[in-house]
């Protein structure tokens, strides 16, 4: 069984780690303890972190989780307060480029030996791995992945459009939307109105047109790429999408309109993989919708990565150090990732986890397959709308332009391009 081998590897990893004098002290006779801060408190997120805590306790550890309800800012306030108070959590939830930014504020733990022992680096998408070792060493570990550009198709809207082919490219998508409109679907593209919503449409458009241009313009903020033809083409595509959306959706959560999506008042939804869990929990049936990777003009799947991770803060207490080692091992363990993703509806970070068994949904299998293909063709890129591509300030500046573009139909794609690069310049 592959898992036993991994366990053994993990054991070997602990042995390597034990070679470090500090950790020898940490491991000798103390009960591992972990202080954790996360924003996961409600629903499946709360259930998943609770299950992880149980596993930690089963291994003989003491699990001290302090959920910080709310959004990322609240958790960061709490984290900052704890760091300033000289009492950083042994481990805290953090994601994207914020990992690099925060690692400059307080010392972190070097996890290289543990990662090497678990063979983790080989099974993590390269763009994702880079984020978690900002100074060259692993200081944080990704736990689960969502794709932000999955395409959800309403079965009834497909019937109205008399279509049965899942769109692959943006041209197919536009064609299908036109057919839906002609067939009586009032709004071929479903939408919500929260901040990531418009951003997700833009990133899906640009990455689908050219993942390379997306990486250059959005992730690396290359000036030429930001003003390039692909970014303009993305704005053109977003205009089409915006014209197909219901303009009367205010700042609503996308889930508010799920009924309209299922009943073919709205046709297609560009959403994160999590929408599958939302649809299921809202009581809708799998037969009512189809999930596919977002449109990609070169035909190969494009995967916009959104990943949750833990960062490990340096502590001198032996029991906390032992707890960090145990936690790192658990987070990288395929069995733990399986358990976690099956609760939340995400997919595991490890590309070697087998998703064929019961407990996984078709949507998750398709997402994992898309990730594998996207990594193989170097088309797995970091999501802007979900704070994976840029730090918070830069993300906010860019999303502001995109939201205005979606709402203000008088803005031309040329103006969109100019405003976006101005916003980037201003936020730099």
């Amino acid at each position, binding site marked *: 069984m592959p898992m036993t081998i991994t366990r053994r590897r993990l054991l070997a990893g602990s042995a390597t780690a034990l070679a470090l004098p500090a950790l020898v002290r940490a491991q000798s006779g103390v009960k591992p303890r972990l202080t954790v801060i996360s924003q*996961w*408190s*409600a629903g499946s*997120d709360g259930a998943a972190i609770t299950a992880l805590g149980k596993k930690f306790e089963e291994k003989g550890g003491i699990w001290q989780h302090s959920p910080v309800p*709310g959004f990322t800012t609240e958790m960061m306030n709490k984290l900052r*307060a704890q760091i*300033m*108070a000289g009492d950083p959590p042994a481990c805290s939830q953090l994601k994207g480029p914020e990992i690099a930014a925060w690692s400059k504020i307080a010392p972190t733990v070097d996890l290289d030996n543990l990662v090497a022992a678990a063979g983790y680096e080989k099974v993590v998408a390269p763009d994702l791995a880079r984020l978690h070792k900002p100074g060259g060493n692993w200081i944080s570990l990704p736990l689960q992945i969502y794709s932000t550009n999955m395409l959800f198709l309403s079965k009834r809207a497909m019937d109205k459009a008399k279509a049965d082919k899942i769109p692959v490219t943006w041209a197919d998508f536009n064609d299908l939307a036109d057919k839906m409109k002609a067939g009586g679907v009032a709004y071929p593209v479903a939408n919500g109105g929260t901040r990531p919503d418009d951003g997700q449409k833009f990133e899906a458009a640009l990455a689908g047109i050219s993942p390379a241009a997306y990486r250059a313009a959005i992730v690396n903020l290359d000036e030429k790429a930001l003003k390039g033809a692909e970014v303009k083409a993305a704005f053109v595509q977003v205009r089409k999408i915006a014209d197909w959306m219901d303009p009367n959706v205010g700042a609503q959560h996308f889930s508010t309109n799920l009924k309209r999506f299922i009943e073919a008042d709205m046709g297609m939804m560009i959403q994160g993989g999590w929408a599958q869990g939302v649809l299921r*929990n809202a009581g809708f049936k799998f037969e009512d919708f189809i999930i596919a990777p977002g449109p990609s003009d070169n035909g190969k799947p494009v995967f916009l990565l959104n990943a949750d991770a833990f960062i490990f803060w340096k502590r001198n207490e032996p029991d906390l150090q032992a707890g960090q080692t145990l936690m790192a091992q658990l987070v990288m363990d395929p069995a733990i990732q399986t358990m976690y993703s099956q609760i939340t509806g995400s997919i595991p970070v490890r590309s070697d986890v087998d998703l064929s068994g019961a407990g996984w949904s078709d949507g998750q299998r398709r997402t994992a397959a898309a990730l594998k293909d996207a990594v193989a063709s170097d088309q797995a890129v970091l999501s802007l709308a979900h704070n994976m591509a840029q730090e918070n300030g830069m993300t906010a500046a860019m999303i502001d332009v995109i939201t205005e573009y979606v709402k203000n139909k008088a803005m031309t794609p040329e103006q969109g391009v100019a405003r976006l690069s101005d916003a980037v310049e201003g936020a730099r």
Partner: protein
Amino acid sequence: MRKLSFEPSRVLIYLVVSLLAAAYLAPLVVVVLNSFRSNQEIAQASMIGWPKQWAWSNYAAAWSGFCVAETCTGIRPYMLNSALVTIPATIISTMLGAVAGYAVSLWRFRGDSWIYGIVTLGLFLPQQMRLLPWTVVLRDIGLINTLTGLVLVHTIQGLSFTTLFCRNYYAAVPHELIRAARIDGAGFFRIFWRIILPLSSPILIVTVIWQFTHIWNEFLYGVTFTTGQQQPVTAALIALSAAIADIPQHGVQSAAVLIAALPTLLVYFFGGRYFVRGLTAGAVK
């Protein structure tokens, strides 16, 4: 009592006022209705609608059922935390504000207007700006992650408002009253206790309402300076709202919000009556 008049202008005024009241109350009606609808029902129909089946269980879940990560206690213990912070902070800050307002309005001393100015400056500092200084203070006195620390924060933050309120109210008290009392041999605190305080119920009630509402509804300090099971009720309410792969828990959320709003509503309800009575006490002579 006066007879109701049916002049056209009166009818128009009532019509407009009723419409405005209806507009203001509409969101509350949605929340109340949703507190009786299951999450699935809301997700499958629409945010606005009449309950198909009355889901009383939302209230049970809100009060003692829902989970914040590992702990499934509903909002009950968090309500207690909020009370443990709000009640002392409200009382202490109101009393200190009354004394301070009395001192700066009715006594002259060197730098009195400066002190008043500096105290009220606190009104203009955004909460976020004070977050880090408070972190340092709480760390140094060892009160970070304690309810006592939170009481201290809210008491001191509240002083700006309570001093301002009381000072403006006492400014209308005739100085002769104080002078007469001093001739009779009363000191600073005796005058406050015997003369000023008995005059103060309207402003004290306004201050208490203000402080209670603000501290009860406060979230940023509550979530930053406490941890886990000590968090205030606002943190528990937010905990219900953030889950990525779930439908928002609108039903339980609505019930929890209504329960959590009860204490402030009660303070308004009872305080408001005294408030009006206090205001009109001297009106008919």
